[in-house]
């Protein structure tokens, strides 16, 4: 049981506290309800670039990392489709430095051209390092716009292209910040060796004086129902053919989400997963194959991707993947198999929650979904999934006319 208390400030900031006295540290997690989904389709990548700018100092704190490092702390952040999440850990009696730094940059940051220009270069190098200069790195840049025609999940968080990042000006960054960064659009969770009372006092002292700012979220167009299968074939300078296949599934808040999470584990959880045991071990068609769900808040994707063995055609590989997926629609799943994926979920849940930082992140995220208490109900919800629910979800969603397929072929195949 992960206990927490919750309160709010008048400016709208929500604060949650989980006390864990078994550690000398405290973790502070600050989630902003803004991600790449909130971007203008003509200026993608700005949410993530802004995350970089948040580390470039303010009027009061010229070098963001310095005071925190001085306090023995460490911090980082990530941006995804839905959220931008900042986090730090620090010896518990220096936690106030974290409150100071986070409240200071929530108040406002440095939008200078110099800082922005350097961070644009850094992000462009990140773009190259992760997406362009890696074998198969651009598959995400290809698969998303194939699967989504309309919803903003159609571009990756790093941005659609380098030219979008290049075009961002200081005033765009400033506008995006004031449009989305505000106490009322943030969730602060503090965990570790600290009492709720002290968190309340510190939150009131540092975040209390911040003005309530109105955010201006845009309405994100829903993805229309897909009625025809989509295919894309590309050739690249890679040594081995690869297959990517995606299906639209439900959103994070729907009941089917848990079913899909287990379903993806039936397919690819560990080496006993169906895809691995049938297509890697028995039939020797793939060298690696994996499946995951995107876990986005709005309806996301189930993605299967694998690298082909020598001599295997992409058609043969794809047919076999489809067969394994179709088998789920029969609902024939042994008790052992259901028990296995539930045990795996329970283990990963418990192990992940041995860390105060993970607990703080999870609590913030569940609060964003509408109920932080979900963190304690998860195991139960997964346990409640039946083989019939897996069957029904597979029948409802995992059809060809709801799928997008990318054949990522080697130019000099072998």
């Amino acid at each position, binding site marked *: 049981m992960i206990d927490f208390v919750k309160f709010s400030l008048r400016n709208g900031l929500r604060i949650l506290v989980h006390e864990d006295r078994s550690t000398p540290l405290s973790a502070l997690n600050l989630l902003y309800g803004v991600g790449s989904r909130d971007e203008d389709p003509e200026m993608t990548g700005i949410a993530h670039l802004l995350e970089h700018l948040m580390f470039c100092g303010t009027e009061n704190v010229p070098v963001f990392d310095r005071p925190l*490092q001085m306090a023995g702390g460490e911090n980082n952040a990530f941006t995804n489709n839905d959220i931008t999440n900042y986090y730090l850990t620090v010896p518990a009696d220096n936690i106030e430095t974290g409150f100071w730094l986070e409240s200071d940059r929530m108040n406002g940051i440095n939008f200078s051209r110099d800082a922005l220009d350097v961070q644009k270069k850094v992000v462009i190098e990140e773009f190259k390092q992760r997406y362009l*200069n890696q074998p198969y790195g651009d598959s995400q840049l290809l698969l998303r716009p194939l699967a989504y025609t309309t919803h903003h999940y159609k571009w990756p968080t790093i941005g659609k292209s380098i030219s979008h990042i290049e075009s961002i000006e200081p005033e765009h960054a400033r506008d995006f910040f004031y449009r989305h960064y505000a106490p009322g659009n943030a969730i602060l969770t503090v965990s570790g060796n600290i009492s709720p009372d002290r968190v309340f006092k510190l939150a009131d002292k540092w975040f209390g004086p911040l003005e309530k700012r109105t955010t201006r979220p845009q309405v994100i167009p829903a993805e229309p129902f897909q009625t025809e299968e989509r295919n894309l074939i590309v050739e690249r300078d890679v040594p081995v053919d690869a297959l990517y296949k995606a299906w639209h599934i439900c959103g994070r808040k729907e009941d089917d989400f848990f079913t899909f999470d287990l379903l993806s584990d039936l397919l690819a959880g560990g080496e006993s997963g169906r895809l691995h045991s049938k297509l890697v071990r028995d039939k020797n068609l793939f060298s*690696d194959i994996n499946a995951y769900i995107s876990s986005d808040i709005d309806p996301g994707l189930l993605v299967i991707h694998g690298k082909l063995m020598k001599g295997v055609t992409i058609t043969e590989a794809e047919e076999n993947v489809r067969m394994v997926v179709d088998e789920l629609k029969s609902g024939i799943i042994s008790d052992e198999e259901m028990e296995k994926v539930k045990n795996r979920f329970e283990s990963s849940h418990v192990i992940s929650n041995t860390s105060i930082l993970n607990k703080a992140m999870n609590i913030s995220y569940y609060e964003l979904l509408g109920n932080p208490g979900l963190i304690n109900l998860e195991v139960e919800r997964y346990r409640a999934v039946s083989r019939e629910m897996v069957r029904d979800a597979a029948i409802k969603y995992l059809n060809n006319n709801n799928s997008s397929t990318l054949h990522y072929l080697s130019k000099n195949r072998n």
Partner: protein
Amino acid sequence: MSAEKMTAPSINPINPGSLAPVKSIVLGNGIPVHIIEGGTEDVMRIEFILRAGTVMENIPLQASSTNMMLTEGSEKYSSEEIKALLDGYGVFYQLSAERDSAGLIIYLLNRHAEKAIELIAEILFNSMFPEKEFVIMMKKRLRRFMISREKVQTLASEKFFETIFGNNHPYGKMVSENDFEALNTDHLKNFYASYYTPANLSVIVSGKINENIQEIMDKYLGSKLPGTPLQAGNESDFQKCPQKRIHVPKKGALQSAIRIGSATINKRHPDYPGLKVLNTILGGYFGSRLMKNIREEKGYTYGIRSVAASLNLSGYKIISAEVDNQSVREAIAEIYREISKLQKEPVAYDELELVRNYMAGEMVRMFDGPFSMAESFRAIWEFNLEADYYRKLAHTVRTITPDELLHLANKYYNIDELYEIVAG
């Protein structure tokens, strides 16, 4: 009151903490088990360590393939059954073969402990190396190898270790496509028979320890015949490459991977804690000189870091970054500039204070919770060092002077002795 007017909170001195007491027991056949108790959840992490790393191998891929085949079939179970059982108990496992050691780490809920340990004992000591699974695994590995050859990071790192340790030593030997053909199951069976023995195994258990852990371990691991004691590994010498600057071409690469460094002292040397501090200043944290200069001022890279690492027979230091092709020369020049600055100008008080606090905070994190504690324990245990190592490290972090750092920079960062690899 507005937020701008508030003064920064004061900072309390950081107590780096220390390694928790480790309870060491010995199983019936002599296997040492080190136990670190702690945590709030009913979870354990168990690490099985064998002196069966690449340093022991006679031919390339022998150590790693033996390790990877552990889950591919044993006397009692097929490959399929082993994986179904591990996954069925919700055990997360990670096989690994490093340079000096090999083995596996498992994370598990305590209620599955007995069954999981029984299974691990089976694969550690009764593996069969079936031909069919071996062929599939080697095919998979070859495919992965070919993909990794497309990454400038891999190309640069491999060449780096080859140049600093030499192609004759397992620390520096590069794997080639032919090595995948040459290996057979007899190589693995021989390696397994020599090195996967109770006499060559140590166990580290951490977490909220199951009360009858000793009984369970004794029943399944302690009952095996101990086997012959450890045989000596490959004793060949390091042969440094005479050429200091090497370019590994990679057609069409958009970025180049830079690796600069050399072999150096390891954890057993009294200068090592000081070298750690120096390395942190240079490139060991986000506020480091290399990060500030090459990322935050110039934007040449997404990240640059410098590491001082320890192996059993040597240590090494390495600076690594992936940079824009156009900025390679400038980035390298800046790296050398930062090194020579450390050799000429004493580190300023403010910066040193910052690094002292940052590193003390790192130590708090190293000792936070049973799993981190287990990793920190292993990091000294495998060098036959005592917990005293961390006291010395903490002392050095607190007291090292700018003059001492200047001296270390000149002693260990002689630019003429550094190797410079660029792939791209």
